[in-house]
């Protein structure tokens, strides 16, 4: 059954992965202009 579930989620891949991608993007986000303003 787990394979069934994972298979169904693979079908919906992008939407299911989106929160993970957003978390990663937030973690890795750089602020080039703000960093230049840092003391």
């Amino acid at each position, binding site marked *: *059954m*787990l394979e*069934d*579930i*994972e298979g*169904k*989620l693979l079908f*919906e891949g992008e*939407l*299911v*992965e*989106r*929160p*993970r991608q*957003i*978390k*990663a*993007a*937030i*973690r890795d*986000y750089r*602020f*080039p*202009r*703000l960093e230049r*303003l840092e003391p």
Partner: protein
Amino acid sequence: MVDLQDAANLAVVVGLVVAVIFNFIQYFYGPWAKRREERRQIFANIRTEINSAKVSAKNSRMSAYQGRLETWKKDGHRLPRRIQRDIAPFAELSEGYWPAYLLASKLVELAIYKSVAARTDVAPVLPRATSGGEVHWVVDVDGNKHSKNNIEDSLITVLTEPLLRGDHVRWSWLKYHQ
């Protein structure tokens, strides 16, 4: 003629000196100073919110609160444009997390419902059994009988986080948690 020229030069010099003094006062004590102080405060608040959002994003739990940039929404337009261009995509990401999480977790729930339904002979999505209502039973590999709704709920509770995290779930892992 010479006197007039001198007077004009003097007027220009005096005008320049007055303008410099005026700008000096504006810059250090007038509305410009006030605006600069407001921007500094807004900027500091946004920095704190950005740091908080980054800390939230490091939490591996997908259902954990993801910090948002409330000061940015309220006062971000008061910052210089070049700073706004830096922060805007980040704020958009932070705002987009919860809708994306809710949609993804609904898809996981739906996949679990459909998979449970495919393994049993009952309709794919059932109304929840209320007291006195009809209960559908399934038997697990050990021969124990469970209400189908309980099985679905347990699987949703146990599987949603790892599936959203992108972990490959295994029966051994699942049994341990059950």
